[in-house]
């Protein structure tokens, strides 16, 4: 099933909650793995994910990757790459939130794989995943100032009394 077909199924069930389809097709592969759909209403994200996982036509049993992205226009995005190992189709979804209010529902209970990726998203991009069971930083120290993968991140001059760069 292609991404537009999956979007049509989603539109039947979540009218107004699903956004546009964006296609990139420099190669066949990019058309399949690079094109994505927007989730317009982030409050519905978890329901959409549950539907994607449990619907017989979709059966997305695996979360491939969860990435975060700074769009440099005061918005941050979370990108979900899903795959059904049973029906052999993939889907990319994007949720965009303003930088002032970076709360996205956690989907750790839908796919446990999201657990560490969401922690990384909080650590690196400062996106708060509401409902995450273990919402801590993962790669950096708990007291690190700021979230390094944001485009406006500046290294602190001092960290724990040490000059940076040393």
């Amino acid at each position, binding site marked *: 099933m292609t991404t537009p077909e999956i979007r049509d199924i989603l539109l039947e069930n979540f009218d107004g909650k699903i956004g546009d389809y964006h296609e*990139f097709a*420099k*190669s066949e*592969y*990019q058309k399949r*793995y*690079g094109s*994505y759909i927007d989730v317009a209403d982030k409050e519905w994200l978890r329901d959409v994910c549950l539907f994607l996982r449990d619907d017989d036509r979709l059966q997305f*049993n*695996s*979360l*491939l*990757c969860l*990435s*975060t*992205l*700074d769009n440099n226009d005061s918005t941050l995005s979370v*990108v979900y*790459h899903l795959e059904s*190992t049973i029906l*052999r189709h993939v889907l*990319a979804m994007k949720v965009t939130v303003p930088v002032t209010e970076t709360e996205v529902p956690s989907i750790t209970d839908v*796919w*446990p*794989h999201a*657990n*560490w990726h969401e922690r990384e998203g909080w650590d*690196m991009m400062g996106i708060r995943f509401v409902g995450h069971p273990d919402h801590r930083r*993962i*790669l*950096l*120290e708990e007291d690190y100032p700021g979230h*390094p*993968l944001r485009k406006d991140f500046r290294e602190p001059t001092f960290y724990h009394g040490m000059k940076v760069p040393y």
Partner: protein
Amino acid sequence: MPEIIDSHKIATRALTKEATFRAEKLEPRRVRTEEMLLNMGPQHPSTHGVLRLEVVLDGELVVDVRPHIGYLHRCFEKHTESMTYPQVMPYVDRTDYLASMSSGHGFALAVERMMGIEVPEKVEYIRVLFLELQRIASHLVAIGAYGLDIGAFTPFLYCFELRERIIEMFERTCGARFLYNYMWVGGLSHDLHPTVPELCREFLKESRKAHKEIVDLLTFNKIFVERTGNVGILPADVAIAGGASGPVLRGSGVKWDLRRDDPYSIYDRFDFDIPVGTGLVGAVGDAWDRNWVRVCEWEESMNIIEQVLDTYPYEDTTNVQAAIPKRIKPPAGEIYSRTETPRGEQGYYVVSRDGINPWRVKQRSPAFCNLSLLPHISRGCLVGDLIAIIGSLDFVLGEVDR
């Protein structure tokens, strides 16, 4: 006076507490036990790098494991944002340092797919040859070091001797032994060294002998089987939902290999099997199965290499750098590109904004995802088994922490 009354109260309370404690002590069934917190690593040889495990123990039983990662974090993803695409390649090599060829190839492929580059057939052949050699080299470290974890020292040396031969071929071709920077976007840094096909055939002979030896000596060794069979069982549904890939997923009996299920390069031309765990000495998905999948994959990789050597275009004089674009600047867009490295599915989420630097690169490293399953499969096992489970996951901390 209030103070006196208070202290008196405290004294009586302490007395009664002691009395109850004594009473409990006399009754063996109510022996007070306490959970102990044990820190394993970050400087512990069995954790294969700088991984710290916070283990909650009840006697010798593992109640909970909390992995702490990030000791080897080198800001790979942030670095890429200020590098051009070719400059990213050496950084990619340093993520999965035991399989630099594979991780380099993954990124090169992602950029090629974004730009729509078709690489020459000869380049594809060399790539597959080196990827499979790299897979063997990586699995040799995994199998050997796993034996070392369990207490078998000698097979480790056999494995490293064999791995040395692979590294020799890489060194002759691209000059580096460990971090190659060999796979470039659209091509390769050097042509295949003319002696490699011959060396490769010799290697295959030795390798087949060694494979049998390792299987007899280590894999079906009674002590090894006792230590790893029925330990750390990972059920297939947990593995899929938890994002496991590679030998960890296949060890749970799931026949899933991107070389077959989402073919890239020229893998669809070769005939090879996908070994899965069958619970030969215990339950499906135990530590032994994961190791067994690696041992079998070693043999399958040898079969692929044999086919590559038989069909390699020896007369082809195409320049391996012919398809490399002058200016590597993918059009605006994004991609999630994935390949099967020795550790599993390595994905690159690359976003381009029509510049010479990537806007964002996220590496979905298989070891990171496999390691996140460690708490699920090690609850309730013994401390000694925890070592066996860690070894069977075969993670590289460079890739976990990036």
